[in-house]
């Protein structure tokens, strides 16, 4: 049974890690734009150079 005690603490540790990972991911902007990033590769990046012409 003593292994259960260890597992409870291990579980709490994993929970803490998961929360840290989630907060890190959100704060680094990974969830900011879920719709447009997929299409970003199709976009023209020439707008700026056309302005300079």
């Amino acid at each position, binding site marked *: *049974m003593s292994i*259960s*005690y260890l597992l*409870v603490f291990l*579980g*709490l540790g994993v*929970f803490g890690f*998961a*929360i840290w990972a*989630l*907060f890190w991911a*959100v*704060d680094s902007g990974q*969830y*900011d734009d879920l719709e447009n990033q997929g299409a970003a590769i199709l976009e023209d990046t020439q*707008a700026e150079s*056309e*302005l300079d*012409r």
Partner: protein
Amino acid sequence: MNASALHARWSLDSGDHEHVIFAVEGMHCAGCARTIEKAVNALPEIEGVRVNAATARVCVDWRGKGSTGLEQILGAVMKAGFKPMPLAGDAAASEYQKERRTALKRVGLASLGMMQAMMYLSALYGVTDIDAHMAQLMRIAGMVIVTPVLFYSGAPFFAGAWRDLRNRRLGMDVPVALALTLAFIPSVINTFRAEGEVYFDSVGMFVFFLSAGRFVEMLVRHRGLSSTEALARSLPSQVIRLTTDGSREKVTAADISPGDRIVVPKGGVVPVDAVIPRDTFARGRLDESLVTGESAAVERGAGDRVFGGSLNLGDALTLEATAPASRSTLASMVALLERAQGERPRLARAADRAASWFVAVILVLATLTAVLWWQHDPARVLPAVLAVLVVSCPCALSLATPAALAAITARLARWGVLVTRADAVERLAAVDLVVFDKTGTLTSGGASINAVNLLNGLGREEVLRIAAALERSSAHPLAAAFAAHDDVALGTEQVREFAGEGIEGAVNGAPWRLGRRSFAAGIAVTHKVLPLFREAETDSVYLCGTQGIVASFDIGAPLRPGTREAVDALRALGVQTVIASGDSDRATQAVARLLGIRRAHSRLTPDDKLWLVKELRSGRHHVFMVGDGINDGPVLAAADVSCAMGQGSAIAQSAADVLLVNENLALLPRAIAGARAAMRVVRQNLGWSLAYNFVGVPLAALGLISPWVAALGMSLSSLGVVLNARRLSGRA
């Protein structure tokens, strides 16, 4: 947010009156809207405050130059416990991003915590036999997990409840915060006593379901905001301006003043209202769909107007600005749309008052539930009370109307139909009779041939060709009506125009006259064919040759495109149509016949029109008046709903409830149908949330619903209301 960020925003200022619209963070229900209204109204010199809970917008009118300034207004809002945010621009984007990130972290923590807490605490459900040490460890693990969930993810509920209580009113956060406290405190006590029930898993689940519901509401709200923001943001921030020596410089759109020459590259967006200068002889292909809703590309030549917000599909175009960015058509549209979304419609206000009472009733019911269960089975007091507090959903009730109205307003705006008043949708749905002004509304300027009456054996084509040949070189407005029938094979000579009479000339050698009857017939009189006419003149134009009058042409103003379809579609919707015109009987009847409209009133003065609209309304009709918006203000105001056609910055001053930006009447029936659909959704939403509460609360009081099911039910019912409204906005 500082005040200057807001000042930079467009507003509809009119003399010494100031007007501002901003968004607010932390507003979830109608009660919050009233708190803000009260706080701002307490300031001196405030003329009006409108707060819309669904879109989280605050719209304030005040007399400027007094002691009240923007800083004081924002201060009052902050003191009431809300954070003002700008509506658009980079500052707004970062505020929304922050709000979204925080909400995401709250939901994420709650979902992870809820699942973990449930796993540990399921050991205590009595299915497995565990020793006291292990049980105590599970309680502690549950507490360790749920405490951050409650204080981080659940913080908005406590903040909201505290704000409500401080402002001495009952908002929807009060029962939620009460339920969370009631479940959490006994659980902590039992954990330290190392015996008894703990409800940490229920707390985790409440917080998760409720904050997930809030999260989706927030997403929908941001999306609603983005409909106006999409308009505002579509303008480029950088513009190429031509200096006097012909070189190019980059400036911001705000720096452009009327008269400046700017260059819009291919694929670029026109930043301000402008014209194509006559000296460039340029032609441009433009997509004006953002402004007018018209998706087909339009051709614009030298001297033509170009709207700010149009997309340049052709080659790079040099334009001359006609208005600063803050006065462009697009800016006026955004300002009007913001005003409409900032107002709270009558229906929503009624629901708000109901929701506030509703919370009071729920608190009383929860107390009753506690007392009754105490007498029967003290162990079940807490679950039953928690269920009653959580299951009730005043939120769905107060969201039902604004969510639907915001969705349909955004959709109509995409079509080019601007709803400028919050109540207009409700009244538009009730419309059963449309009164059209004729000139400028059903018909546009210019002339067209409405009918050709053949009088003397010649064919329709032939008379048209002769008339067109005579008018070939004429500058008279009538000439344009015949131009389509011109045939270069017909030679003309000795063409002379008689002002106010007509035109005379030889076509392929034969003399002809086209014009008023007496003038045209004159040629036949000289050839001794016809006696001189002595009858009254008509609006028609006559063609007369040596053999006598061969044809008469009924001339009228051309119908706007889409008019016939509009009238037919209105009829299909069961809406009657009436024409009210100041024009002559003949011209009015001709248009009425063309459109199949039976009731046509002609020769009406503006007073007569006013009287007509009032009489129709007293006959229990809901009257929709459609005018050109130029000089029919009082008539528009007298109708239940009014619609004007408008372009340019003039639309901002319009008194009409609805504006047709692209002047396409075919949108009217679509707008009425859309408004009816919106009111159907409102009724569904109100019906649903009432039914849900009437069923849910008694079941919870009887102890038949466990607290976590109640939390799920409440979140789903709010979501259902919001998603049902989302159907209206359609896919862009």
